């Protein structure tokens, strides 16, 4: 606990000094509205005081600072988050969105800002092999409109019963109540948001990590409206810059105790 606290304090101090030192990237907007889900801890969520928190939010703030823009946030349910961007409710989506071909037909993506595989989670006591035979007849919970859903339908859709939920938290609720046998989602999300919590004590990862590009794309990126090349370029430069000056590593260490940028 103490190491965690000092890490947080260090990160805050760094963010502060970095903030005063950084210069704006030229030719970038000075106002950006960021859309996020706000229901996906520990990446983006609303804390007990009603403030947006999480890795995505910290990254968004760091990027905005790097760009020299004033950023405000809007929360939007996951399934409507792309339509909301297209309807100009916000200028960019920073909400742990995987860069997939399907989505890239509707929106433009920046380079990735992190990458994490998908994994299954089930009760400790359960012995299961993650394969077509092993999963036969099981019920698996997954968040609606996610890459994990596409993966589950594509690979195991013909042998498992699929329950879809509006948020990942509802899927894990139904795992703990026993309505579904397994859930599948982003591995970091499951480990930080569920397995490390009290509710997730008696649960563990099952089977290997999945990261086929066909389903999971090229990592997690920022979505902007098609044709917003300038904004995209600004974010790309800012991602490179915060990785180079150590800000990215600080934020990632603060949240996960490791750098999650991935290979």
């Amino acid at each position, binding site marked *: 606990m103490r190491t965690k606290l000092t890490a947080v304090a260090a990160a805050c101090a760094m963010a502060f000094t970095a903030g005063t030192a950084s210069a704006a990237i030229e030719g970038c907007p000075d106002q950006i509205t960021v859309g996020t889900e706000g229901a996906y801890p520990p990446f983006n969520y609303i804390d007990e005081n009603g403030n947006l928190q999480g890795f995505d939010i910290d990254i968004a703030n760091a990027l905005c600072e790097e760009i020299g823009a004033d950023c405000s946030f809007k929360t939007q349910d996951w*399934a*409507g988050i*792309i*339509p909301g961007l297209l309807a100009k409710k916000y200028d960019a989506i920073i909400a742990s969105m995987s860069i997939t071909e*399907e*989505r890239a*037909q*509707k929106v433009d993506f920046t380079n990735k800002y992190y990458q994490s595989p998908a994994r299954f989670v089930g009760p400790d006591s359960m012995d299961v092999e993650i394969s077509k035979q092993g999963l036969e007849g099981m019920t698996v*919970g997954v968040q*609606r*409109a996610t890459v994990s*859903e*596409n993966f589950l339908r594509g690979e195991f859709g013909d042998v498992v019963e699929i*329950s*879809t*939920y*509006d948020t990942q938290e*509802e899927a894990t*609720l*139904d795992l*703990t*109540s*026993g*309505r579904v046998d397994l859930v599948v989602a982003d591995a970091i999300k499951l480990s930080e948001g569920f397995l490390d919590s009290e509710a997730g004590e008696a649960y563990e990862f099952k089977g290997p990590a999945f990261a086929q590009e066909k389903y999971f794309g090229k990592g997690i990126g920022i979505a902007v409206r098609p044709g917003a090349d300038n904004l995209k370029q600004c974010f790309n430069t800012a991602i490179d810059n915060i990785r180079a000056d150590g800000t990215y590593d600080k934020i990632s260490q603060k949240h996960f105790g490791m750098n999650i940028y991935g290979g």
Partner: protein
Amino acid sequence: MDWQIIVDSLPELIGGMWLTIQITALSVAIGLVIAVPLAILRLHPNPAIWMPVYGFIFFFRGTPLLVQLFLIYYGSGQFSDALQQVGLWILFREAYFCGVLTLTLNTAAYTAEILRGAIQGVPKGEVEAARACGMGGRLLYRRIIMPKAFRLAWPAYTNEVIFLLQATSLVSVITLMDITGVASKIAASTFAFYELYLTAAVMYLILVYGLLAVFKRIEYRLSGHLRAAKDTTTDSQQGPALR
């Protein structure tokens, strides 16, 4: 407008429509069976009887259906161990059961209130006449009060059933694949929100107006005695408007 997506998703949407019809029919049927005794007990002079009934109606009319749905679905999930011990978990485990249970209780509460109003609206004179003929208790209710009350309640009850049909769209949040569930699933993966939800809206329209036609028909039958009797000797050609 991408017609191909609509055509491609029609079979799955029709599957969802079937689930919507099932859930509506079950909830309406069971809800009505519960509502009749509730309405009668609601009018009982003894507070020990009408108070609990009123409490039930008060709760289900006073809270949003979505909250009731979450309460029964995720709420029961939290007590799955206790429910398992009494053997009820096997029912509550199913989203289908939780959905139908919530909608049934909800519509029972509303229908009971509609029927209560109708029972109170039965003209005193009719009740007195029946009593004068020696009818009382069950017979009075069965022969005089309830038939009259049903006729009075029918238009309001038609509305309630239509509201319920539309309210079934909420069950998609507890994993059931009704019309809305299927539409949102396909829309989320194809991003064809406009096409899918428009198709879903048309399907609900068809269901609602189909239902309305049936209920109007029943209303027409129920009110036969209120229309002027057809005189068999004069046919329509001799109607006054044509002369």
